[in-house]
């Protein structure tokens, strides 16, 4: 089952013919993603051959050529292939137009990897997409992976096997770290929602989806300083989530008023602190680890306790 992405997902790549698009399309193909096409109005009608190594990380193994057609628009690509997911690698200046095009074409899920998108653009395309029933994940995110089925974005496919943990995170590398710590248990779906101030999919959206997903037994929630998404998630967990949730928050040592790498990771006055997020989660019954390793141990302990 998993959430948002399965092996049935038919995936387009907007910006596939750029350097990042090429590199990651090759990786996604190696991970088994059903990539049905790229989108580039200037290269419509062509086919790009990817030499795809037959290993999950796309880095080794004998390469096999995989042809991928390029369409002039998302609408063309959807009509020809039945695509229902798009992964967006286009540069920041063109990201809003790309997502609006995909939403107007009626795509179900747009995964926006691009970092550095102006916030006003994100506000516009997230609102536009929501009104048309398109779920946006990102921007400035690593995407999502349903191990063993499909990988939409840049999350490495060889860290973990399929399993029964769901993961939702603002941070890419912390996602990888927790996937690695819990690789022996495995994951249903891991979603990197992104570290920007405005993102299309929240912790709460993912918690609701994991709660409904029969393949997920436990959720790992990773947050960081800035905003109040984690506090909101805590309130949601208290009222709506019956599955166990284990949390981790980064940024206890971050000073006030400094942006820590992610555009959204900033403590403003007394709001957005790691301590407040941890306390809100704990008050909702979430066990919060002091380090990624401890968080993994808490998750293992919860799974051992059983239902």
């Amino acid at each position: 089952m998993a959430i948002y992405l399965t092996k049935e997902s038919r995936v387009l790549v907007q910006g596939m013919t750029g350097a990042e698009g090429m590199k990651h399309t090759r990786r996604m193909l190696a991970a088994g993603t059903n990539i049905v096409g790229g989108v580039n109005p200037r290269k419509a009608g062509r086919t790009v051959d990817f030499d795809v190594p037959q290993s999950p990380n796309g880095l080794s193994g004998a390469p096999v050529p995989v042809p991928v057609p390029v369409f002039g628009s998302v609408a063309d690509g959807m009509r020809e292939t039945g695509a229902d997911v798009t992964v967006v690698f286009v540069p920041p200046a063109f990201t809003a137009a790309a997502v609006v095009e995909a939403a107007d074409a009626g795509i179900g899920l747009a995964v926006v990897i691009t970092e550095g998108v102006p916030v006003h653009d994100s506000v516009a395309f997230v609102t536009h997409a929501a009104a048309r029933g398109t779920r946006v994940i990102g921007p400035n995110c690593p995407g999502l992976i349903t191990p063993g089925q499909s990988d939409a974005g840049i999350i490495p496919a060889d860290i973990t096997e399929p399993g029964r943990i769901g993961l939702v995170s603002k941070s890419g590398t912390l996602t990888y770290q927790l996937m690695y710590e819990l690789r022996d248990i495995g994951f249903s779906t891991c979603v990197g929602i992104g570290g920007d101030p405005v993102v299309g999919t929240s912790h709460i959206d993912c918690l609701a989806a994991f709660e409904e997903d029969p393949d997920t037994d436990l959720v790992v929630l990773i947050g960081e300083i800035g905003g109040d998404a984690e506090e909101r998630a805590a309130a949601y967990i208290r009222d709506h989530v019956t599955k166990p949730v284990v949390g981790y928050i980064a940024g206890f040592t971050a000073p006030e008023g400094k942006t820590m790498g992610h555009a959204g990771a900033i403590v403003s006055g007394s709001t957005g602190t790691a301590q407040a997020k941890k306390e809100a989660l704990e008050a909702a019954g979430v066990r919060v680890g002091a380090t990624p390793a401890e968080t993994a141990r808490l998750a293992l302990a919860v799974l051992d306790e059983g239902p």
Partner: protein
Amino acid sequence: MDLYEHQARELFAEHGILVPRAEVTDSPEEAREIARRLGGRVVVKAQVKTGGRGKAGGVRFAADPAAAELTARQILGMVIKGHPVGTVMLARPVDIETEFYVSYVLDRAAGRFLAIASAEGGTEIEEVAAARPAAVARIPVDPAQGVTSAKAGEIAAAAGLPAQTADVLVRLWQVLIREDALLVEVNPLVRTRQGQILALDGKVTLDDNASFRQSRWGAESTEHGDPLEAAAAAKGLNYVKLDGEVGIIGNGAGLVMSTLDVVAGCGARPANFLDIGGGASAEIMADGLSVVLSDPAVRSVLVNVFGGITACDAVADGIVRALDTVRLTKPLVVRLDGNNAARGREILDARRHPLVQQATTMDGAARRAAELATAV
């Protein structure tokens, strides 16, 4: 990026919002001339990117040009909440009848902007909101519609502002949109005894992500506070100076923030945040190491990398080549995990640098770096 008050004032004026006559200087002598031009009596205001200037004595009246020079000299020497005062703005005083508060702020959870307005301006809006929540109106703005005259009227009415302020609310929204701002705040917005609506003080935060289409404020609004941060910025590094003794280098904002916390949990204090991103080439590693090592407070350095797409052998290569160009003066603890970690560890072992040691886990690496930094 926050703008200085005088830059915010300039933006407001360009968009047709009335502001007091004012000029900026870094020289007390020139302050005297400016005061003369403005009619003698002026307000002298420290230009720093922090709140609470008034309480700190950074905003004062001067009765005549000689007093303006003296006051400017005093304020230009001040440090307000860690921000040295480099310039002052001298403004002609305004005959205030009433003070209001208006702003547009990003509502992150809703993914849209929110108008906040109150008929009780002049003080911190958080204080007003805490004391009398009903005195502060919070109205969401539909991004597709923006703030039209009708919407501005709705905001003004909700906050109990005079209908006259609607025009300013429309123009302020244009500042927000055209300048790619994340925050536009006027506090106070005043009605003068002559009946004019005037923006007396303002704050504007611009979106750094939009700098590719908003080039004008770049260098002139950068505060040259910490020299290490300035050196790192010049090399394009994502570096924040902190007060501790363990230098931190890692890949990915979340993992680096987490590394700082884990080091703090081991009883040492992180000296900095440095995210070298996905690439971690030899050049970036060398640049990063040289900035971190040039911090005299640093007593050990921790490199924490989880190889996702990045291969750890490439990171190890980067470290080894960086060691050829940067003289390592402090112990370096390296933790490599993930993609090609075993190969990366071999490469570092083969280099046999006496100051480099490896740890197999993040927690172990943080513990070791903390021990090295706090050993007497």
